[in-house]
């Protein structure tokens, strides 16, 4: 411990409210030496990066060769040995269930993740977020920010969109230990567990947001609501590993604009030729038109949106965006869909049909908030 941190620990000790059985010594007063055998304590407080207590971390304390069972942490993320420690030897503190990059003592800096372990290849439904959660990383960034993944990130700019078969590097060690003096309180920062969210914007065939639509989500979460003015459905804190869901949407009824009153001018004499069309003279019956009254159901394949720079990422976005329908589109179908996109969205007179030509524009329109 540096002198500075030692001093900080001292201050921390001095500001503490004292542990059980310990006399409180007002600041500035001289402590009264105990005439009996002196007992010692160590206290740890586990917080996340925002200062919120972390209760689920499982610290391991070893003092004087003896392991101290520190779990569970209390509601304040605190564990206090009380004056039970016989010696003054520093206590070894670790979080065996956490990767090294997921915690650090508050008096030390955060260690950058090092991708020294290869993760299993990405399967359908996987993304950095789900994989991190599945593998016990406190944050997707443990993986995502590992410099060993920088090359991959060139073509996978979003942690939520990888490509099946991608292989990521991730920090592999959970062996980190720190030693702290007794009779002091030590604060440890453990990365918070932040669940991902679902953000879906429902748009119409012109890609305009559909506001005020009733929706019901099942599977990944059970929620109901109405789309916002921007057509957004946002579900926070979803199970990061959930891969399936069903979203039912009931579009709002169409807005029927009042038709301007029809004024029938008098027929001049002689009548003009050709005479003005009188719609009422046509007696054909309008085709049956069914209103969309039952909710429309989307089957959500969560985590299955590949990176946009990959062909599968383009086709998946095209399906979401309504330019492709087949489950396993042929090249011709893809080409036709790309052309349609280029004509309608990009307003190109000479569409190429090459998916690479739309991938950036499509990503922007599909994904950008």
């Amino acid at each position, binding site marked *: 411990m540096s002198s500075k941190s030692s001093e900080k620990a001292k201050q921390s000790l001095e500001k503490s409210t004292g542990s059980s059985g310990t006399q409180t010594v007002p600041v500035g007063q001289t402590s009264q030496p105990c005439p009996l055998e002196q007992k010692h304590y160590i206290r740890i407080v586990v917080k996340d990066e925002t200062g919120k207590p972390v209760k689920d971390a499982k610290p391991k304390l070893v003092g004087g060769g003896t392991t101290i069972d520190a779990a569970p942490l209390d509601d304040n993320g605190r564990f206090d040995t009380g004056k039970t420690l016989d010696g003054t030897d520093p206590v070894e503190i670790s979080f065996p269930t956490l990767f090294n990059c997921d915690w650090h003592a508050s008096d030390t800096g955060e260690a950058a993740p090092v991708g020294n372990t290869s993760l299993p290849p990405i399967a359908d439904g996987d993304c950095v977020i789900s994989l991190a959660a599945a593998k016990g990383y406190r944050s997707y960034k443990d993986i995502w920010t590992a410099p060993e993944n920088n090359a991959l990130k060139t073509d996978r700019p979003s942690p939520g969109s990888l490509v099946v078969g991608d292989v990521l590097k991730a920090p592999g060690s959970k062996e980190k230990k720190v030693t702290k003096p007794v009779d002091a309180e030590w604060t440890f920062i453990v990365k918070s567990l932040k669940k991902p969210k679902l953000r879906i*914007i*429902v748009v119409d*065939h012109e890609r305009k947001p559909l506001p005020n639509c009733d929706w019901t989500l099942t599977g990944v979460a059970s929620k109901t609501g109405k789309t916002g003015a921007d057509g957004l459905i946002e579900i926070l804190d979803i199970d990061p590993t959930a891969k399936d869901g069903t979203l039912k949407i009931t579009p709002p009824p169409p807005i029927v604009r009042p038709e301007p009153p029809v004024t029938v001018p008098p027929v001049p004499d002689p009548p003009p030729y050709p005479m003005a069309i009188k719609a009422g003279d*046509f007696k054909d019956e309008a085709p049956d038109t069914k209103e969309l009254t039952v909710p429309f159901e989307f*089957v959500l394949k969560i985590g299955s949106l590949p990176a946009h720079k990959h062909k599968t990422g383009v086709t998946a976005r095209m399906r979401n*965006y309504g330019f492709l329908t087949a489950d396993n589109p042929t090249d011709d179908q893809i080409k036709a869909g790309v052309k349609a996109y280029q004509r309608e969205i990009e307003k190109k007179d000479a569409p190429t049909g090459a998916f690479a030509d739309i991938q950036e524009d499509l990503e922007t329109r599909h994904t950008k908030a």
Partner: protein
Amino acid sequence: MSRTVFIARTANDLDQVNRIVIPTFALEDFRVAIGSKTSKCYLPKGSPGPKAGTGGADDFHFIPEKETIEIRYQIHDTAGLVTGAKLELFTPFKKDPLWTLDFDKLGADWWAHGKHVIKWDGRIVKPTVEQKGTDKDGGLEHDLTKIDLDKSLKDFPEGYATLEFPPYKFRLTLVSKDHAEHGKPIYGWTYWQILIHGFEFELGPKEAVPDTNDPTALQLNIALRKKIEDEGGIPADGATRKVRLISNIYKTASAEMGTNQGYTEYKTMWGNGPLIPILAKIRLKDSNDAEVKLDESDKGAVALGNTQFLWDFEDPDEKTDTQIGAGQAKTFVDDAIHYKKAKTDEWPKGDNCHMDRGGKRGDSIKTLFPEQDGYAAADTLTEGKFPFEVKKAKKRKWAALAKGWSKGKLKGRTGVAFSPSRMAGDDYQLTVYLANEFTKLDEHRLDVADEQLKAAATIKKKTGKFQVWRQMDIVKYVRKKNSIGNFVSTNIGAIQANYNKCYTHIENGQIVNEQLNAPNYNTLARNRIATVTSSNLAADFAVHPTADHSASASAFKLRTYAQFTAAVRNGFVLSNPTLSATDIDTALNNWLVANNVETDAKYAYAMDMAFVFAALNLADDLRLLNGVPNGITVMHFNCATSARADLAQAVGVAGAAIDVVGATRNKCLFVLLWDAVDTFVHEIGHHVFQAHFGPKPDAFVAGQHDAADLACIMSYNRPRPDFCGFCMLRIRGWDSDALSVTSASNKS
């Protein structure tokens, strides 16, 4: 409906979204176009505006077969929900489509997402095989012009859209078998037209003159058609064309004069009137409003199909002031032609001869446009069969609806067999209308009983005036000697002028205009003289036994008055040889006075009276009608006797409408004995059934003349400038039994 979408998780510190589209499909635009001209796209209420804008016109038009247009439509269906489409063609007031083009056979390209253009030349097709679209201008192009015509639909006999049904409504409907509720809108429509540019009349070919199973009538009608053709054909609006009905119909006995036989015979000859094939050549507007003459164009006439054309007529006011002139005759005719003119339940109103007087006015049965079956269009016409189907209109009972030919010799034309009344003086203006506007199912807008039809100038064409005339022919004019001036040539204008007032043309079509050539003339003359002299002593003295009658311009060569008196005196001398010369002279004078021949003038008159019938019989003996065609033959003597001729004495018999051997109902002869137009007119008048009026001569038929007109040319009351109105109408062909001799009574 369920649809799989691919959703990325969003890290808690990021904000990416997943945009998902609720799958829908829509017809975004639908119209027809050629170049920059388009029809207007209509989409159901609540739909977004048409993708290609709200422009366009409801009167978009083109000519099927002649022009190829584009059917343009745009489908939004990126989700692939559409499983078919159909194009339907509607016309007003018919619930069911005239034609449906189901895209099923054509293939999915036809309803794929995006822009589409179908090349179409108005043809009706029924596809049986798939047709892939071809890329064009960012969309797909299709081509219906490569598909065979479907001629199985009765509405489109040539396999093309026709002029019969505009305005057309094209409706395109998208079909989604499983996801119809995701379509908004699923259909759209547009209107388009086939427009007429105008008409041009022409006289139909002679083959088109209908044969009514009456060879004589057919020949009369063919001759009439030829006459109209020779005189310029169909009159332009503002002009008049005489319809001259050859009607050499004459009495066959004097007893027929003053009877209604002329009406009966004329009716027998011309019945309900002539039949004149009148055609209208149809011109359409192409997409640039330029005129396309269907009769000349190699393409486009197929657009006629079963289109109907209304043939109508008006009865213009007769101009009696110019035709007859002022006077009692005009008054009489005016009263008669105004009969029931204001009758409210008779259409069309007018002043032609009313059905009550033998005409067609007010008669909804005896239409001017008799129904015709027509026959299938052909390159060779069938003689005696009218080519076009003609049906009587439903409400406008005096009008007719005719169809046209889309191909064949008369392609691009419609027409009627125009059958005006036979009554001379009747006149008509015909109008042809395009009759493809309806007010209800199967109810033509123009098929109404309103007298004046309201129609734009473009869809109608009016002829000039057809004016019915009778025609009688002078076919032979024989002068006893060429020393007689050619009276007919000199006076034909004046003669015609008289008959013109009866709308009757006296045609000076003499095939023989000669000096009498009769080698046996003297024999014939002496035989006839003998019938006179045997009972008439004066006449006996007037004739020299060896006189050469053939050398005289008169019927008989008589002694001059001096020779006559000398012959009489010599007779007294021979029979009274003892008398003195003075006594002989006294006896002669007494005899001359007793026989009313004491002066040369009296001698001339007495001999005229004595020999006139012999002269008329002599004319009969000459058999002048042998080999002569129908018409009037005139035998012109310079008086019956040379005695009158020598004095150029007007008093005497001027002419006679005699009944001779060889005369028929259709040819007659009269003898002209004195050069006088009124006589010439009068004698023809007799032959056309006109009787004398009085008070001179004593014998007359008062019931066949205007009681108020004593100057009728059929009287001897000179001056006698014209026929009376009653005669005029009789000559025109009216039923005299339905006329009153009192003018005012004929008005109502």
